[in-house]
């Protein structure tokens, strides 16, 4: 389990990094925190010819959070996002996701953007992005593209990012003062990738649900929102009965896969349970800073 050979590049500026990616195309990979890429390489399941270590790029480690929304740049580690009180206030779903991402030592190195770019279907951050309609900002020598979450996650470990692009930041829209959200999941062991999980939010005005998102991870090749279930929530009061109806819709519409850890039926069942648990928890968080 040792890394294969590669040409190592540590660009000092974003433009150098982009030029390298442009030059090497498919044969290059961005190395951010390395918490997903390095094990894949050590197992020799991935062998990029060129590794572009973006760790030394300046000006890509910022978190900007405010009432207008939250921006997390490429080199923001999970640990920094977890500690950020600004994120807790203005993008509470991101904060809620962080403790579920591996273990503390993984979060010291892993980046929020790396998680999103890697797009593991069982990872929390892609589902959070989908739940809140985040925007991914991709830069290349050709310029900057903004990609909305619904277009970003294309399949298993596959995103809309082109080989010559770097995900330089992710933008989360403003968080409504009347919204509550949470991330809930079931994993085999503490800290494992989820068997199935849910990033969810509810916006309640005048006692009725005005807006809702149910974004599942571990339920297919990409994070999945279940619109049919979200619809059942709109216009109804946030109570157990409402949540049970949503849970029922979830189990009817979700078709998760099976593996050695859990069956399809189990995951489907859990999706219902987590819908009820998640929505109740989200409701309790309305108006309470995370």
């Amino acid at each position: 389990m040792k890394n294969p050979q590669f040409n190592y590049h540590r660009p000092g500026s974003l433009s150098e990094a982009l030029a390298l990616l442009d030059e090497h195309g498919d044969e290059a990979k961005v190395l951010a925190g390395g918490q997903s890429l390095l094990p894949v390489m050590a197992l020799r399941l991935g062998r990029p010819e060129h590794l572009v270590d973006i760790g030394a790029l300046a000006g890509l480690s910022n978190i900007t959070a405010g009432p207008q929304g939250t921006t997390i740049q490429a080199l923001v580690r999970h640990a920094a996002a977890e500690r950020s009180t600004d994120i807790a206030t203005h993008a509470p779903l991101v904060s809620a996701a962080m403790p579920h991402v591996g273990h503390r030592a993984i979060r010291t190195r892993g980046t929020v953007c790396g998680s999103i770019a890697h797009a593991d279907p069982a990872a929390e951050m892609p589902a959070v992005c989908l739940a809140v309609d985040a925007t991914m900002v991709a830069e290349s020598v050709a310029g900057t593209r903004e990609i909305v979450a619904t277009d970003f996650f294309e399949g298993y470990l596959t995103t809309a990012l082109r080989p010559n692009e770097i995900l330089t930041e992710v933008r989360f829209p403003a968080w409504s003062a009347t919204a509550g959200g949470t991330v809930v999941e079931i994993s085999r062991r503490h800290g494992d990738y989820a068997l199935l999980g849910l990033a969810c939010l509810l916006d309640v005005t005048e006692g009725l649900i005005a807006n809702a998102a149910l974004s599942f991870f571990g339920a297919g090749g990409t994070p999945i929102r279940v619109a049919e279930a979200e619809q059942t929530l709109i216009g109804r009061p946030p109570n157990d009965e409402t949540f049970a109806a949503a849970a029922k819709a979830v189990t009817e519409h979700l078709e998760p896969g099976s593996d050695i850890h859990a069956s399809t039926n189990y995951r489907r069942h859990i999706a219902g349970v987590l819908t009820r648990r998640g929505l109740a928890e989200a409701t309790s968080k309305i108006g309470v800073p995370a």
Partner: protein
Amino acid sequence: MTAVPIGETLDVSLTVNGATVSVDIDPRRSLADVIREEIGLTGTHLGCEHGVCGACTILLDGEPARSCLMLAAQAEGTAITTIEGLATNGEMHPVQQAMHEAMSFQCAFCSPGFMMSTIALLDDNPNPSEKEIREELSGNLCRCTGYESIVEGVETAVKIMGPTR
């Protein structure tokens, strides 16, 4: 801009346990391998090399990190602490003393990782609850002990170090 073609080596400078170290390495080498082989500090162990067991945990600028999941090249300019860096003047660090007191380990292959994680935990949270201890240590696997003695080791460390920092 640093560029190292296949077959060539890279100079990496970092601080290890307070001393500045420079190594000339194949850039694909993991930080763990460089610590163990080039730098010769074999107290950091490799149990899985894919980020799960935690035996290779070190402190990277004071934060716990998996040395198996970093290229040594990524540690350029950082300060790392390994298990060998804990004792001062031949005297065990309070966490080491506590683990000895609590008879925490058996084969102790996992112990460097647990102790580094413990130091990181107590740095942030000098008086953790049992649940918090277990949660933090859940990133480290031990096959011998069933963990209870290690949890007691952390609790003992809290007693030795005091509940505030």
